[in-house]
């Protein structure tokens, strides 16, 4: 425990490890201010919040608002009228077919059965959403205010910053002895070598601290501009939350019933676990390479490689789903986590499958790395 505390101190005493997260937070604040902090947007969002709380999406309320002289009230009513039938003819098999046609994705055999059954389940979810009334809950009009899109773009940016801080925390400590020319002493005994695990744990621990700082401050800043009182319980599947995405215009179909708050909490947990996973990989790779610079460059290049991998696989087969279950692709899908989006990942909890599989791979990699490091001749 004492060694752990000293390792933490080393990291905390480095000014860079404070300046860099501060820069990240500053950049996030700039982005948030640019997206939702402008005076016009703030005024509109505040007024719209009042309108949403006073009026739901029922016909009686909307018919009153339709002829309103207030521009935002009329817009809200028009939006509800325009999109309230979004669920009426929503057929997930049609959506699947269109995605297959536009993406030249034509599965066959057991893989086709798998995709078809996923979309059958999603169709059942659609029926469930209609029956439960989740489809018509009031929220900021999706296309007008894009709260979901802006929030998850911010989260995506925060995740990149979290990954950088996590890798830096782990690698700074694990490369400390080499940089300060003390490795001959420290790694000359078993006890010194075992200290490497303490460094890894301390790096992961403080990496989480930095991640939490970046994530919480950015989200708090975001929600200081966007009032969410009374809207946390809005189901994400409501047609009001829906946002256009290229050709696609249909509500967010979550694999399980989720409201806005629950989705955000689940996303934060997923982002934190993703950061932990990348920190674990950085530590394991450092045990092999013993050079923080090469490790960091390799992690970045590997991340890009994994991002490109699903594009490289053109075959619509099981391999497509297997390669898509990777951490880089998980990051790329942020904003559509736990929501139907990508054909190859159209099943529930695919995000946590990715994390689970790669945690096992990371743990094995770490064990092999540890074995290699313990026997390494310095």
């Amino acid at each position: 425990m004492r060694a752990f505390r000293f390792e933490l101190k080393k990291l905390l005493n480095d000014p860079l490890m404070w300046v860099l997260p501060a820069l990240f937070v500053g950049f996030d604040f700039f982005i948030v201010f640019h997206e939702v902090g402008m005076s016009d947007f703030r005024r509109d969002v505040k007024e719209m919040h009042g309108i949403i709380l006073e009026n739901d999406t029922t016909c009686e309320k909307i018919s009153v608002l339709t002829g309103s002289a207030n521009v935002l009230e009329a817009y809200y009513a028009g939006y509800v009228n325009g999109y309230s039938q979004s669920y009426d003819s929503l057929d997930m098999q049609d959506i699947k077919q269109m995605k297959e046609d536009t993406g030249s994705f034509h599965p066959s055999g057991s893989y086709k059965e798998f995709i078809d059954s996923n979309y059958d389940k999603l169709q059942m979810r659609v029926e469930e959403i209609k029956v439960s009334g989740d489809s018509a809950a009031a929220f900021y009009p999706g296309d007008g205010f894009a709260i979901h899109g802006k929030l998850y773009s911010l989260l995506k940016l925060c995740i990149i910053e979290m990954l950088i801080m996590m890798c830096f925390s782990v690698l700074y400590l694990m490369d400390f002895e080499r940089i300060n020319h003390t490795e001959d002493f420290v790694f000359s005994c078993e006890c010194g070598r075992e200290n490497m695990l303490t460094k890894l744990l301390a790096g992961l621990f403080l990496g989480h601290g930095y991640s939490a700082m970046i994530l919480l401050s950015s989200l708090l800043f975001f929600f200081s501009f966007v009032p969410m009182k009374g809207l946390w319980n809005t189901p994400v599947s409501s047609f009001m939350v829906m946002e256009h995405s290229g050709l696609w215009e249909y509500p967010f179909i979550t694999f399980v019933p989720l409201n806005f708050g629950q989705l955000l909490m689940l996303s934060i947990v997923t982002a934190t676990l993703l950061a932990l996973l990348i920190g674990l990989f950085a530590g394991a790779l450092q045990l092999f390479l013993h050079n923080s610079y090469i490790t960091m460059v390799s992690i970045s290049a590997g991340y890009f490689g994994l991002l490109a991998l699903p594009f490289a696989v053109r075959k619509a087969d099981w391999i497509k789903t297997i390669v898509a279950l990777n951490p880089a692709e998980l990051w790329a899908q942020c904003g559509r986590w736990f929501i139907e989006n990508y054909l190859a990942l159209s099943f529930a909890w695919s995000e946590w499958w990715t994390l689970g599989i790669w945690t096992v791979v990371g743990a094995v990699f770490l064990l092999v790395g540890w074995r290699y490091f313990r026997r390494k001749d310095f």
Partner: protein
Amino acid sequence: MRIITKEIRKLFRIKPAAILVIFTAVFIRLFLSIAGTGWNYVNSPSDVDFYRELAAQFGPELTTDEWDAFMAKRQSMIDEFNAAISQDKILQKNGIDTFDKCVEARSALVSGDGSYTNKDELSDEINRIIFYDSVTSPMYFKLQIMSEFVHFKGMTFWGSKTQDEIFKKDTVSSEQYKKRYTELVNSNSVSLIPSAVTRTVDNDFSRMVILSAVWCFIMILPYQIGERLKGVRELQISSKTGRSIFGKQAFACALTGLFTGGLLSAIYAVLLYRKGAFDFLDCVIIPNMRIIYWFDLTYRQYLLIYLAVFLISSVAAAILAYLVGRLSVNYIAGLGISIPTAAGLCAAVSKFGYMPFYAHAALIDSFVKILLTVGLCAVCSAAAAVMLKKDKVRDIL
């Protein structure tokens, strides 16, 4: 010179270079528009080929003398299209038997107007003809391109309009902009360049700047930090000859940046060549009045300007990497400082260097953006010069 050559050779080490080559391949595949199978910013895959066909027939510009030949070509294509749809029963039922009527029907269906009997059926049929039919679809998009030229002829070109006629109630546009616009309106030729070839380069430029910055930082940074960690710096500072090496190292870094910029530009040029963009090198880059520039630059000149800006930014990135390397105490600090520094440089160059000489209605910014890019790079060089000057008198303790 021998020392500079050796310094450059030290920077190009196998391991980082191998990682960078893989990274570059992935980056190009993922982020550059030019690396895709077709062209972006076009209505159909055959658009650019058709522009090439027009350029081969009429030359880089379509002039007033060639207008009749152009219209004759258009008419023969319309006849072909009309013949192709003449047997279509759904179109016949709705009285659509010509290209113009087909276009009218499509816009009416999109806007929800028109008194057609079965709108869904007609809409599906028109979509089939435009997007899926292997005979009519290419013809439709070729005619659409030709119609655009006809539209611009009717609206603006080859008239003799005065500046006041064009900008009757405009109080926003600057005098320079009005003058330039009027000059283009009264021009007696129109360029046969597809806007896709300029827009692709415009949008890939910022990504190429990022790529070159990544190359420069990854190659230069570890070497500088490694020297500090291995105690070489103290040895260098202890003699006058040793101190003079700092300047040579900075120069070697700048040359490395230049080389990297050149290498990446060559890769990009190959990609452009493979896509056939070089067929439009002699075309002026103003295809219509939507995007206009202060000068009648040809595509060749436009690419050369981008090349110059890109090379300058690569050198600036290399000098910045040298500065960061000299100031960093360890690898993590080096990477940590590089992230905001490189991001700042890339953001600034992308903003200033994007669409050089683009004419904005309210601003007179023909040279300002280029000057800002050069100024930014000059600041990087000045910072390096200050550091090198300090090196000459720095106390070893």
